[in-house]
């Protein structure tokens, strides 16, 4: 193995403080990656338990358990916890772990800032969750924070704003770190067009983050001054413009949803070639498609606002620009399918989750295309049809690929294989229940059920009950995930350096588990060329 000689000569570098101080003070990209992933996992279950509470209240018509205001807090904090607490930190964690390994760098470029950006997150979420215990209750104005409603919030309002500021600062620092690392720390010979697609999609995601997180920060700062310092940017009573907030918010918000999904495209582009034993079809087209999606994300924001009363020209522009997104997204789906064509397929857990992604994310794409049609959107907007749409792209989209990524690299991280049978159970239960949970919500939306309501008319009872059963099933099946991961950390069959037969890339050139320090000596050109994305050309 090309790597082991150098690894052993650096064995003496592996000293690290032990116990809690190691984790508080660490500047090691693998430690920080692990911290991010653990944090994301915890927030996934926090946000998930709120979803269970929501589905419990919606199990049948009538108010059984919750005050309507608390129900609104549940939907609001569920969204914030899942987006900013679970999915984004999970991607940053995977970036921390894998980008240095994949580009042949010894660590992230800015290790101390890396530590800081992680440790902001627990404080941010403490502030957010403290909201449940202050007068007025947790934020209940929706994660979209629309004024004037959000300005009616109680004491949790400033807490939530500060929490969002901290999350934003953390994300911006994480994004700067990723860009600086990719631009400056690649091993010699790791040219941009040799980088694995996970690195590419993260590079583009990081630019999106830098472009839009400050916009969100600006918007919530203005909300704060509207509430406490007598300004009236957005509060209508003082002559402000509440629609302006929506424009600013969605200028952040639409790129934000691509921030949640672009790294997922990267993961799928790693996993499908590995288990098809065939290089990714149309590598460059994939890079350009990702870049086009990122570009388009800046000019489609008002499709979230078709009912606010925009001028006709505005509605037309945002309808047509939104439809364009289908083209690069289609290219990606076709490329993934073509990668499998004439491959040699096996169906290990990471591949299974990515295949479910392929089908279910496409379903989310179809409903997205329908939602783009402005006149039809007058009927879909703010109904369960929208809820079904964005959960299809976020749960089997982002979350399934995060799970796939963990199952893909877990043996590399721990040095052990995990329980494949249980992981397959995890896959089948998740895939079946996620459809029972979210597919009926399309019907509910079309039948006329608005979103964000704690109780509903009796004609919506049947599908809500089905959806709730799916929800409980999905929630319970996710408990398998930490069990499988912890079991794998504790022990298991030894994993080889190249864990999967068809795996190519620099991360598979280092031993499993990956040593504390890797690539202190950059990989040789020969290793890069044999392990790189274009391995068949050589």
């Amino acid at each position: 193995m090309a790597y082991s000689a150098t690894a052993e000569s650096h064995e003496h570098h592996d000293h690290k403080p032990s116990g809690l101080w190691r984790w508080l003070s660490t500047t090691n990209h693998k430690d920080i990656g692990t911290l991010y992933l653990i944090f994301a996992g915890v927030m996934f279950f926090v946000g998930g338990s709120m979803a269970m509470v929501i589905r419990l209240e919606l199990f049948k018509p009538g108010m059984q358990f919750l005050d309507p205001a608390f129900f609104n807090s549940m939907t609001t904090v569920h969204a914030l916890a899942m987006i900013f607490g679970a999915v984004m930190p999970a991607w940053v964690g995977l970036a921390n772990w894998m980008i240095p390994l994949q580009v042949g760098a010894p660590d992230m470029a800015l290790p101390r800032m890396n530590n800081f950006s992680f440790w902001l997150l627990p404080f941010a979420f403490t502030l957010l969750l403290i909201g449940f215990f202050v007068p007025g209750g947790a934020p209940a104005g929706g994660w979209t924070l629309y004024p004037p409603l959000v300005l009616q919030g109680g004491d949790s309002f400033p807490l939530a704003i500060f929490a969002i500021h901290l999350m934003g600062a953390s994300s911006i620092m994480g994004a700067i770190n990723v860009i600086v690392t990719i631009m400056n720390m690649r091993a010699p010979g790791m040219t941009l067009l040799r980088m694995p697609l996970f690195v590419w999609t993260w590079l583009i995601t990081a630019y999106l983050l830098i472009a839009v997180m400050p916009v969100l920060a600006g918007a919530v700062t203005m909300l704060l001054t509207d509430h406490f310092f007598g300004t009236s940017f957005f509060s209508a009573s003082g002559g402000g413009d509440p629609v302006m907030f929506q424009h600013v918010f969605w200028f952040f918000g639409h790129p934000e949803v691509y921030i949640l999904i672009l790294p997922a495209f990267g993961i799928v582009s790693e996993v499908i070639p590995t288990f098809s034993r065939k290089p990714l079809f149309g590598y460059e087209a994939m890079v350009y498609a990702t870049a086009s999606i990122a570009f388009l994300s800046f000019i489609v924001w008002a499709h979230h606002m078709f009912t606010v009363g925009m001028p006709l020209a505005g509605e037309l522009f945002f309808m047509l620009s939104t439809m364009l997104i289908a083209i690069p997204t289609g290219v990606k789906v076709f490329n993934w399918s073509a990668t499998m064509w004439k491959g040699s397929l096996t169906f290990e857990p990471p591949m299974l989750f990515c295949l479910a992604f392929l089908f279910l994310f496409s379903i989310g794409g179809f409903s997205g295309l329908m939602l783009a049609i402005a006149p039809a959107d007058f009927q879909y907007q703010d109904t369960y049809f929208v809820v079904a749409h964005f959960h299809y792209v976020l749960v089997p989209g982002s979350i399934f690929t995060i799970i796939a990524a963990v199952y893909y690299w877990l043996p590399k991280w721990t040095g052990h294989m995990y329980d494949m049978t249980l992981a397959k159970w995890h896959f089948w239960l998740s895939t079946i229940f996620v459809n029972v949970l979210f597919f009926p919500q399309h019907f509910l939306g079309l039948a006329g059920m608005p979103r964000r309501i704690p109780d509903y008319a009796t004609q919506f009872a049947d599908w809500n009950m089905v959806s709730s059963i799916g929800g409980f099933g999905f929630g319970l099946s996710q408990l398998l995930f930490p069990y499988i991961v912890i079991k794998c950390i504790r022990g298991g069959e030894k994993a080889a350096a190249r864990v999967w037969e068809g795996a190519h890339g620099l991360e598979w050139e280092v031993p499993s588990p990956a040593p504390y320090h890797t690539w202190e000596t950059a990989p040789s050109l020969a290793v890069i060329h044999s392990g790189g994305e274009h391995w068949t050309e050589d």
Partner: protein
Amino acid sequence: MNMKKLATAIAVVTAALASPAAFAAWTLNMTPGISAISRRIYDLHMVMYWWCVAIAIVVFGFMIYTMVRFRKSQGAVPDTKLVHSTTVEIIWTVIPVLILIIMAVPATRTLIETDDASHSQLTIRITGYQWKWGYQYVDSGVEVLSTLDRASNAARQLGSNIDPATVPNYLLNVDHPLVVPAGVKVRLLISAQDVIHSWWVPALAIKKDAIPGFVNEAWFNIDADKTGLYRGQCAELCGRDHGFMPIVIDVRSKADFEAWLKTQQAMQRPADPAAPAVATAAPAPAHTG
């Protein structure tokens, strides 16, 4: 199904107002609605739906075939040279472009049509409040305040122990519906007093945000034969009781509507011409708070 039977029975009892919009349970699809525009939108929705189904059959079919055909367990050998094909990539970029153009044409046409509120014969001002709707007939000055009906309101309280199935039109019934004429082009001017609401009646395919400080415009022209009750809800999160401010429109023939409007005018004017009286007699609508 018990509750369905009950709902039907009640609909029959209130014969005069028997709603053609009686929902069946397990509803799967959007209502085609009661106006030319709402049917256009429904058709657009169905066209988009069938396109998506067709594309899904082709794409998913290809993926499933691939997954079955090229299994390693069946001895598939990878063709590692197959990594690029300009022809194929051009084809799968151009075909979606063409499909999108085909989709965009009717969508654009319908959008332009929904935007044209000119030549309306009646104007109604709609105001959203936390948590009720105010309606004002601009020319006659008649005002209606529309809140969740008592039966639903009692049943929806936490721990009320009232089975929602026993409440007719649970959460979709109001004390004073918005009375509108069929066969007349009606213009709506939609605004709000406190926070953003959204006025949505699926049968009209109208959903328009009610925004404080803004006046939004919408319009409808209901088919002359589609008299009856149609129901909708607030569609924008507006605080604690967002789920409890339904909308009911009572569509009447032009003559019936005008008779109703005259009665209301007579009832509201003597009380207080500037601001209509609080708590007027029986079916009379109240003031705006």
